[in-house]
């Protein structure tokens, strides 16, 4: 059963935010994102945040639901002034986030037709095609170690070669820059070859359509209701009890 809370909100969106933070850091747009995020006003059903995204230590389902509503707008504001070299990348990032947001919106429908399910499946497919833009930010620790090792080896080789050839300072600097570019390219190739998006939550969204055909809308099976009920029915009951045989007390308060 796909669980909306843990698959989408605390799954894909949580991963997506990590990738976006990496992307913003790489392109030096973190401050713009932070400013746009903090400037969001409160609205009925939406609680604006007074903290920056990175300052929040624990994300609950409710917070992630708020984030889904405003993520695309905030990101669009943060990436609104790209350089010439950044235009294409920014466009691809925004498109990818746009598709995921649209998929999330469609998956929340409480009533579906064949057409809405088709839309949802199309969004899932398009997200699958476009997500590669974030591949470099999905580096595992093992891949990062390999990349560092490769970088070290290349640097040693380069030093050995450069020492044997005596050249002017300008020529040496030019060669160093070229070597560094080559080194980066090779490391990126390694990262792209080793990184992947093969994890369960990413795969689960491809089954949402089938699930709706078989059992009905996705929202019905979300664990958010169970977790809310747990707080009200169990935790509050436990707090009211004298902690001595609390199960009996909890049951009797709902008897």
């Amino acid at each position: 059963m796909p669980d909306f809370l843990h698959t989408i909100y605390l799954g894909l969106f949580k991963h997506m935010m990590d990738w976006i933070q990496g992307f913003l850091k790489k392109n030096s747009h973190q401050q713009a994102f932070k400013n746009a995020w903090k400037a969001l006003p409160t609205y009925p059903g939406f609680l604006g945040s007074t903290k920056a995204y990175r300052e929040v230590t624990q994300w609950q389902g409710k917070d992630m639901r708020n984030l889904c509503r405003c993520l695309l707008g905030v990101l669009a504001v943060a990436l609104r002034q790209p350089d010439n070299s950044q235009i294409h990348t920014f466009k691809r990032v925004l498109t990818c986030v746009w598709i995921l947001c649209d998929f999330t919106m469609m998956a929340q429908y409480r009533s579906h037709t064949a057409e809405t399910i088709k839309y949802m499946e199309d969004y899932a497919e398009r997200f699958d095609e476009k997500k590669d833009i974030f591949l470099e930010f999905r580096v595992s620790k093992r891949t990062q170690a390999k990349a560092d090792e490769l970088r070290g080896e290349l640097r040693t080789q380069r030093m050995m070669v450069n020492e044997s050839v005596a050249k002017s300072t300008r020529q040496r600097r030019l060669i160093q820059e070229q070597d560094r570019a080559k080194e980066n390219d090779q490391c990126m190739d390694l990262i792209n070859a080793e990184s992947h998006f093969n994890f369960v939550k990413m795969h689960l969204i491809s089954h949402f359509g089938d699930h709706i055909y078989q059992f009905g809308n996705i929202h019905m099976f979300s664990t958010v209701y169970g977790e809310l009920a747990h707080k009200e029915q169990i935790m509050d009951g436990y707090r009211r009890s004298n902690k001595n045989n609390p199960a009996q007390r909890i049951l009797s308060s709902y008897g």
Partner: protein
Amino acid sequence: MRLLNLVFLRRAGADLPAAVVEYLEETLTAPSAPPVYRRMLKGYRDDVRDVADFGRALKVSPETICRELIRYSRLSLPLGRRLPEHPAILRSLPVELLTYPKIPVLVFQEIDVDDIHGARCTGDQLFRNQASRNDSVWIQVGGEHMYGPLRGRLPAKLLALFKIRDYRHEEEVYRLAGIQMMSVVNSGRPSEVHGLVTVQLREYAREWTILYIGTI
């Protein structure tokens, strides 16, 4: 999946098989009219009695308020029920200032269920010892064909909610809102990059616009 009744299916222009129509007609009951919700105004502020007080409380010049009230009166009210245009009389009209409108919003994918949204407009006053709140609201400014996906609605900043009583016309009460309208960029067409419609607060736009509360 939700079951739709015959009235709704016919309205949507569905091509139904004859057997289905016959069966549904047998089981059809008289449709109940959807409940009509009024925009309720709450959060009465007792420091405002007339238009002059109203301007003072919101830190807006009474001339601006009078000018906007006259503009609203000329554009929206029938000839016999217009507000007085003499500044001295207009300033003395009793006003009630409120801070909390309850706005019914149709629930997505429903045709007769409303969700009540509570916006806030506290003016300069703090909201629960935090920053003041002047929430954004949607205003129906035109037909459904306008502004593309916005369907004739534009966002606006809610500055004040008030009732003004015209004692000359059998205690007529007008429920009005003071707002600051935003304008839509690119005629309301969604951006090709992120698919969002952009709106902005223009510098040369009127700071205050008064309109009937029902357009929110």
